[in-house]
């Protein structure tokens, strides 16, 4: 008997044994199809790592295609950087928080800005009343930036800033703050996210339309490559795609396709690829699909190597993909929240086994509110324990050679590569984004995931199975939004009184001129900021030329309903809706809205598409509406209900305002208002007192929610 048939005999022997143990006729019945449509087999064997398309089994870390890591020594030499993303309320408060964290063992800083700052509005702007200091720190000028880094030496501390829309005034403020601290631009280290394409796809904190936005990205890449050699000009982010519901292959493919687009934008500035490519960095989400996430990171490095080779890069640093990772926010549940500590731990391990360069671990309460000091400590310690107690740092890429991991890495790479080719055929990512293709694909994926959870196909512990009968109460951080806003306004007024207005006007004019004539905008932004222009003023000077971007919204339909064909609960609600239609001559009509500057619209989109599949007529409101706009929209379309999706802590100001506006327009209105998203239980009573009819937290079952809504509507209209 030759070797091969001997092996085949062994495998069929295993198969028989497997089938006897499991009492199924065919072991293939245990093949699981993932969200990515990848088939996971119960067993992987040597044959599974032969003839791989992208992965070279046996390659070494620190060598192309860098599947095993960008560095030869990886964590053996230095563990990943613990980089916790944080920021809230005022610069003073955030600064205080950062300093405490640094003392407690955190290595790098990562700044979260509030939504008005992201969207280029000053805190005193009427548009942003409910958002100041909520989901991040409010920065209105270089004075705030200086306070933010007070006592933190910027020549020693690497600072990551999540900023995409208002990149110019914020990076300029950082540069000027450094300068006034005595640190020149060339000694500043850190990263600015500066990844605008994904904003148009999922996160929605853009300001200008895609084309001028891409120019700003290129300006920043050019500036940093010349003036800030230690600073990463961009963090190409898949994180928000996964948060918005993209599966891992979509996340990987669109992130790399974004990367390709940014490289092209920089090349069009006449830069040499190796001048800027070493400063491109990446950012991925790590969810609960343990091995898939590991494979994704390994595949990402493998594909980027190939892409950069094709661009003609020679510098080793250009060829390696270096990435930051964050555990998944969307995997956290409001129900039984301490489970989130466990979820985050597994996700962190996954990121580390995948070879991340830095990591943020979420706090367990982030499905409900901003982290408290207590929850932030647990999150940080999750990483400290991994680094100090588990031994995971002792061996580079310990899973290499695993039949399963190598095979999965190759399959993820191959699937992502196909999508990248599709994007190329559309003419690159800017064009694909303009055509709305990635957005739709991500929304479809998100809806599928939700349907799998609601139908019980996917188990989420504490949510659709193993529920805790005694839900624990947890303390949450409360931001006094009014006070933050007042403080910020005082600071803005003080700044405006003390600055040289003539100089300021001149530099703002120069900025507007440069926007027209195509000069690099960061130079003139730095000048304006030095002259004490506010973030809002800089943004406005550019808006005068570029305009503001408004997204249109196309929903997917039919995706959710497909999962529930013949499902009794689903049909039960559908029937209720049909009965309503018979009595009232039209379907129940619900306006789904986001208010304020909160652009996270995954939840709103999922509710819209699934409610429509169930039978409601759904009005989709535009993003960034004021409560007044929403009330007008609701009254004109005579809707039965308004569903408010809120994820950025604006509910305490915006929702009561909506109720008042509704009353003003129609004192006898019968409109039911329900709220969904991230709302701490402590606020429930407050909202009920304002006549909110229902509140749906993260992890709410859509069908149950839909039933509650139709019941509420029926009751109100039968009165």
């Amino acid at each position, binding site marked *: 008997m030759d070797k091969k048939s001997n092996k085949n005999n062994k495998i069929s022997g295993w198969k028989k044994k497997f089938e006897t143990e499991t009492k199924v006729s065919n072991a293939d019945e245990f093949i699981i199809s993932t969200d990515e449509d990848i088939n996971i087999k119960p067993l992987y064997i040597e044959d599974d790592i032969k003839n791989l398309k992208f992965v070279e089994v046996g390659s070494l870390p620190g060598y192309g295609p860098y599947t095993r890591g960008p560095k030869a020594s990886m964590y053996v030499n230095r563990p990943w950087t613990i980089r916790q993303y944080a920021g809230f309320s005022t610069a003073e408060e955030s600064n205080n928080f950062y300093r405490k964290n640094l003392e407690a063992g955190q290595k790098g800083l990562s700044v979260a800005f509030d939504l008005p700052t992201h969207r280029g509005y000053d805190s005193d702007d009427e548009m942003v009343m409910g958002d100041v200091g909520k989901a991040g720190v409010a920065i209105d000028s270089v004075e705030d930036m200086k306070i933010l880094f007070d006592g933190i030496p910027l020549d020693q501390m690497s600072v990551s800033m999540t900023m995409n829309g208002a990149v110019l005034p914020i990076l300029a403020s950082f540069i000027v703050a450094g300068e006034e601290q005595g640190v020149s631009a060339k000694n500043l280290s850190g990263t600015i996210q500066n990844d605008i394409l994904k904003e148009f796809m999922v996160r929605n904190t853009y300001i200008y339309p895609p084309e001028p936005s891409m120019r700003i990205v290129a300006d920043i890449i050019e500036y940093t490559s010349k003036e800030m050699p230690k600073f990463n000009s961009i963090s190409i982010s898949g994180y928000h795609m996964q948060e918005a519901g993209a599966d891992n292959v979509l996340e990987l493919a669109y992130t790399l396709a974004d990367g390709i687009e940014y490289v092209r934008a920089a090349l069009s500035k006449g830069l040499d690829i190796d001048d800027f490519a070493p400063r491109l960095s990446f950012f991925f989400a790590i969810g609960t699909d343990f091995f898939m996430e590991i494979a994704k990171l390994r595949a990402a490095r493998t594909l980027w190597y190939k892409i950069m080779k094709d661009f003609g890069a020679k510098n080793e640093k250009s060829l390696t993909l270096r990435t930051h990772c964050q555990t998944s926010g969307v995997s956290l549940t409001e129900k039984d929240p301490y489970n989130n500590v466990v979820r985050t731990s597994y996700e962190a391990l996954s990121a580390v086994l995948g070879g991340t360069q830095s990591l943020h671990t979420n706090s367990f309460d982030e499905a409900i509110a901003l982290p408290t000091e207590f929850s932030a400590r647990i999150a940080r310690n999750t990483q400290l324990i991994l680094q100090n107690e588990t031994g995971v740092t002792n061996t580079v890429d310990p899973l290499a050679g695993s039949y399963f991991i190598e095979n999965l890495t190759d399959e993820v790479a191959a699937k992502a590569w196909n999508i990248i080719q599709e994007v190329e055929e559309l003419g690159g990512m800017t064009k694909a984004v303009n055509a709305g293709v990635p957005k739709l694909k991500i929304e479809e994926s998100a809806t599928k995931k939700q349907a799998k959870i609601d139908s019980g196909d996917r188990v989420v512990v504490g949510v659709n199975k193993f529920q805790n009968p005694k839900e624990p109460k947890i303390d949450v951080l409360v931001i006094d939004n009014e006070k933050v806003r007042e403080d910020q306004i005082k600071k803005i007024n003080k700044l405006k009184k003390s600055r040289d207005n003539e100089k300021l006007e001149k530099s703002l004019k120069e900025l507007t001129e440069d926007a027209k004539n195509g000069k690099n905008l960061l130079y003139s932004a730095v000048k304006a900021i030095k002259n004490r222009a506010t973030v809002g003023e800089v943004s406005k000077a550019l808006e005068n030329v570029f305009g503001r971007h408004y997204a249109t919204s196309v929903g997917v339909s039919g995706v959710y309903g497909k999962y529930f064909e013949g499902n009794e609960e689903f049909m039960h609600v559908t029937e209720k809706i049909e009965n309503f239609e018979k009595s009232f001559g039209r379907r129940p009509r619900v306006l789904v809205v986001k208010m304020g500057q909160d652009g996270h619209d995954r939840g709103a989109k999922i509710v819209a598409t699934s409610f429509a599949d169930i039978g409601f007529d759904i009005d989709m409101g*535009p993003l960034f509406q004021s409560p007044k706009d929403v009330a*007008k929209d609701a009254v004109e379309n005579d809707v039965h209900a308004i569903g408010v999706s809120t994820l950025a802590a604006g509910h305490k100001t915006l929702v009561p305002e909506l109720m008042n506006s509704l009353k003003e327009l129609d004192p006898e209105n019968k409109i039911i208002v329900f709220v969904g998203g991230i709302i701490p239980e402590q606020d429930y009573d407050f909202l009920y007192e304002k006549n909110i009819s229902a509140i749906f937290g993260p992890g709410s079952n859509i069908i149950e929610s839909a039933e509650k809504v139709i019941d509420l509507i029926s009751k109100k209209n039968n009165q």
Partner: protein
Amino acid sequence: MELVKKVLDNDRASIAKAITLVESSNPKDKEESKKLISSLINHPGHSIRVGFSGPPGVGKSTFIESFGSYLVNKNYKLAILAIDPSSNLTGGSILGDKTRMNEISKSQNTFIRSTPSKGSLGGVSYGTREASIILDAAGYDFIFIETVGVGQSETMAANLVDIFTLIVGPGSGDELQGIKKGITEYADIFIVNKNDGDLKLQASKTASDYKSALSFYSKKDNHAAKEVLLVSSIEQNGMDSVIDTINNIIEFNKSHKIFHERRENQLSYWIKEEIRNQIQTKLDLEVDRDSELINMTKSVIDGEISIYDVSDHFLEKFLK
């Protein structure tokens, strides 16, 4: 009627409820709706009703946002009825038009209502005509009726408005075929959108294609000339030419009595349609319930009588 008074007072919530009433499929609402419309029709306003149609993807809503805010800035009062085609056949609809009308939806001088087309023929939903009567009585200067262009639909949409506009995109030359036949009959203005950026050249080529196609169309004496206009919605360019053209055509039509003739024709079309609808509803309700139907159908199967005997019998029975 309290509602009539409030609609005439331009009370936003009442206008909205009135539209709900005329769109309702509930029989009781229908009776109420008849009363409402009969009374409002005696309080005509001065609205000019403009229809906008065109194939998906040419930027209809974006154009309306742009043109609409141009008008609102000139202090016109504007109502928009958007018939949203994105209906789900099995479930409800997702009405996303307003996400493209961000600016005008905020103005106090606008009223914007979306209606799911529910697959109804013509891209016009039941109640659109009645809704425009409500909005006219409520005092709007312009009523825009936005429909998606799918073949036959223009005919019906054109039957609701004083001026009918077709919006097309650059390079939509393929549709020129269709234009020679049906649509030219109904469209008064052709708007070539997206005359901006890289598409500029293509847009002006498309416009001249349309112009030459229209020159083959024999111009009747008593008709305002059909116009082809180039606009950019995103740059808000060409909007003055749109409003000038609308005003010119309306003026021409008024001075040549076409304006009123058109409205009269639409009224008689409406009456006939109403009769058809009522017969239809009556038959649907009563014939189905009639036990005679089953027996007579059996007789048809047995070859005792013909189907025409049955249909004649029922017509006589119910149209008495």
